[in-house]
Structures are given as structure tokens and as C-alpha cells.
């Protein structure tokens, strides 16, 4: 029993629980935009389980592949793999088993849903992490596309097809990702430099990065508003979404006009809160 507890304590940091929960919520929101109120508990359990396992699996595989650069960055060097607390082969096996389980459940539920889930996992692990992350700062576009797959998958499971609302929701997440990742890469620019990972701040400078954050925030807010209107979200919830979007835009503009570490950190945190709130509002 103690051995199992120790293992679980090691495995938990491998799945980046907050990021996993956020992606899980986007998937649930995507499904609920098509099927609300939810009357099929079995589908919801299957959706939750398959998304949780697929996202966790891809995160573990990313951690396994990136263990060498994680060891160079103070922010990540205490993680189980770079710190040597966990064997790399064990992490690889765990990541593969969890990923296969997640995609397997997804395919068994619905072929299209399973295909999108597999696509998200493939883009995240193979295209983003293994192929592009160490070569170009633009890899975040692929990270963004993979981040948009859970919401597209959820929507596709609910409607049985890929419709314009599903694509709009995916684009909203895609344009939200730079706000999240680029503010993070400004905050930890020294870490990324140490690891030799190209980022927007190191490649194009901070001004260009902040402008990109502002533009992508505007696009994310506009597209999520259009998608919410398409879904048929009630006016009250649309008003609340508009208020939260205005907060995001104000912070993004403040980061361009009067850049500071405080505004950058505020924008990073607010962006996560914004996405979580927007997803919850889409569920109604």
C-alpha cells in the first residue's frame, strides 16, 4: 500500500494536473454545447475518462521526451524525471499505456471522437514536442492546435460531426494559447534560454511578443463570443462573457502600453481563469 502511495506521489506531477483539468473542462464544454442538459451519464463518464487519460498520457510522454531540457531549467529540474526520482523507461511505459487506454476508450465510444483525440495526442507529442519545440518559436501554433482538440472532440461527440461552432471553439482555444504560453515564456525567459528552447521573446524580442499576446487575446475573445452566440448562449451569460473578455483585453493592452512583470503575471493567471470561466459559461 505504501509503495502504491509513493508511486502515485511520483506520477501526479507528471500529468500537470491544473493544465489537464483545464483541457478536460474544454472537452466537457464542447460536448455540453451540443448536449445540454446532459442525460447520458455513461457518455459523460466515458468522455471524462478518455479525455483525462489521453491528456495525461500525452503530458507524460512530453515529460519523458523533454527530461533533458527540464534538467537544465530551475523551474522544472525538480520534476520526477530530471531529478532522477523516476526511471525514464517507467515513465515512457506509463505514458504509452495511459495514452492507448484513453484513445482506445475514445475510439470505442465514437470513431470521429476517437480520431480527433488521437489527432490531438499525435500533434502534441510528435509534431509539437518531438519535431518542432526545439527548432522554432512557432511550434506554439501546433501546441495551440493540439490544445484545441479536446473541445473539438467534445463538440463532435455531441453533434456527430465537425461543424462551424466546433471549429470556432477550437480557434478560440488556439488563439488563447499564445496569451497563456507567451506570458509564461516572458516570465521564464532565462530558463528557456538555459535549455536552448527557442521562444518568441528570445527570437523576436519582448515588444513583438507582447503585441502578439494582445492580438491573439482580441482574436480569442471575439471568436469565443461568436461561438457562444452560435451555441445559443443566453444574453445574461453572453454579457458576463463580454465583461470577462474586456478584462482580458484590458490586461493585454496594459502589457503592451505599460509592460511590467506584475501585468505579465496578472495576464498569465487571468487568461487561465478566463478560459475556465468561458468554458463553464458555454455549458449553460
Amino acid at each position, binding site marked *: 500500500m505504501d509503495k502504491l502511495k509513493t508511486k502515485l506521489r511520483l506520477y501526479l506531477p507528471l500529468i500537470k494536473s491544473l493544465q489537464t483539468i483545464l483541457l478536460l473542462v474544454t472537452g466537457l464544454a464542447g460536448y455540453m454545447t451540443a448536449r445540454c442538459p446532459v442525460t447520458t451519464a455513461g457518455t459523460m463518464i466515458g468522455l471524462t475518462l478518455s479525455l483525462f487519460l489521453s491528456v495525461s498520457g500525452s503530458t507524460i510522454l512530453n515529460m519523458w521526451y523533454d527530461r533533458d531540457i527540464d534538467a537544465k531549467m530551475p523551474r522544472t529540474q525538480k520534476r520526477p524525471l530530471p531529478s532522477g526520482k523516476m526511471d525514464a523507461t517507467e515513465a515512457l511505459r506509463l505514458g504509452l499505456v495511459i495514452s492507448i487506454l484513453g484513445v482506445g476508450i475514445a475510439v470505442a465510444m465514437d470513431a470521429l471522437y476517437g480520431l480527433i483525440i488521437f489527432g490531438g495526442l499525435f500533434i502534441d507529442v510528435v509534431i509539437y514536442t518531438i519535431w518542432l519545440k526545439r527548432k522554432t518559436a512557432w511550434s506554439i501554433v501546433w501546441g495551440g492546435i493540439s490544445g484545441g482538440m479536446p473541445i473539438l472532440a467534445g463538440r463532435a461527440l455531441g453533434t456527430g460531426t465537425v461543424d462551424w461552432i466546433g471549429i470556432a471553439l477550437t480557434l478560440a482555444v488556439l488563439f488563447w494559447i499564445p496569451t497563456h504560453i507567451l506570458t509564461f515564456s516572458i516570465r521564464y525567459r532565462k530558463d528557456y534560454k538555459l535549455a536552448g528552447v527557442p521562444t518568441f521573446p528570445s527570437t523576436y524580442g519582448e515588444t513583438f511578443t507582447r503585441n502578439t499576446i494582445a492580438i491573439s487575446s482580441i482574436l480569442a475573445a471575439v471568436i469565443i463570443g461568436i461561438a457562444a452566440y452560435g451555441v445559443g448562449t*443566453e*444574453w*445574461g*451569460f453572453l*454579457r*458576463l462573457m*463580454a*465583461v*470577462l473578455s*474586456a*478584462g482580458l483585453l*484590458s490586461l493585454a493592452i496594459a502589457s503592451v502600453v505599460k509592460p511590467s512583470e*506584475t501585468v505579465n*503575471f*496578472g495576464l498569465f*493567471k*487571468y487568461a487561465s*481563469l478566463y478560459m475556465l470561466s468561458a468554458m463553464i459559461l458555454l455549458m449553460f
Partner: protein
Amino acid sequence: MKKISVIDRILFLITGLLASYQIVDGIADAGTFAITTYTIGFGVLLVASLLIIILGFDILDSPLVVTVSTIIPLSLSLGLVSEYLPKWQTPYLIFAILGFLTIVITRYKSTGKLATILPVATVHGVAGMIIFLLPIIFSLQGKTPGGFALVGIGGALIGIGGLLLTFLKSGKPILPKETILTLLPILFVLMATAFVFGFAAG
């Protein structure tokens, strides 16, 4: 600056949730103009609460605080005037726009202490009196249900909060800084609660 505690964060979260409820459902029966101004007022309250939760009380050092905190009483009073004194909507809208612009201009192009304080005091004073007195007078006159007077209580609380913040920003606080920052989250949550129940009754 006082570190924000877990309890402070919970109180600001409750404030944010109450403001969210008000935006979604609490003002749904008002006219389009009033809905817009209430949404702006409660929206600023919501975003301000979230930013204090995220960044702590340090955010109150920002020079934008005075300008942004003016939006809440101005927009709420505009909504009340539009709903209950519709003949005064246009003149009061002009007053609100001019007052707000004057505050913004005098903040960034300082023309002496009196010229900076005067617009803030005038705009806050007029807006605060409208939020405080209008619901209470209308309730006493029987034009609105008695519970609507709670909006006036909310107005009084927002006035106290605004005063404390203004004195804090002026560098001459009437209470110790620590005390003001301890009171602020309590004032916020009480104010939001009074507004929610008051508007529900009205």
C-alpha cells in the same frame, strides 16, 4: 503593503460571484440602457475582485485605481437614473461623461492638487448620493418595495470604500493602511450583497 490572506481572497471571490450573478440574472428586467450601465458597473467590480485575488493588494498602487474606481458608482448611478428618473437620463449621461473625462485628464495632466481632487470629489459625491438616496427615497415613498432601499445601503458602503481608497491613494489615510486593507474585502462583499438583494427587491 499587507499580504492578501486566504480569507480576503474568499471574500473577493464571493464579491466576484455576486457581481457575476447580478450581470447574468439580477438586472435582466431593466431597460437596455440600464442593463448596459449596470453591466459596466458590476463588470468592473468583478474584474477588480479577480485582479486583487490574482495580484494581491499591490494592484491598489496602480495610478489607474482612482480612474477605474470612478466607473463603478458612475455607471450604477446612470442605470438608476435611467430606470427611475428617465427624464434626467440625458443630462446625467452628459455629466457622467464629462466628469469621467475630467478625472482622466486631470489624473494624467496634473494641474495642481485642488484641480485633481475637485473632479473626483464632485463626481463621486454626486454619483454616491444618487445611489444612496434614490433607492431609499423611492422605498420610503412607496414607489418601490422596501427591500430596494438595500441598494442605498450598497451605495453607502461603496462610498465608504471609495473614501478609504482615495485617502489611501492621497497618502493621508484616515485609518492605518493595514486597517483599510483589512476592511476593504469586507466592504466589497457587503456592498455586493446589498446590491444583489436590493435589486432583486426593486
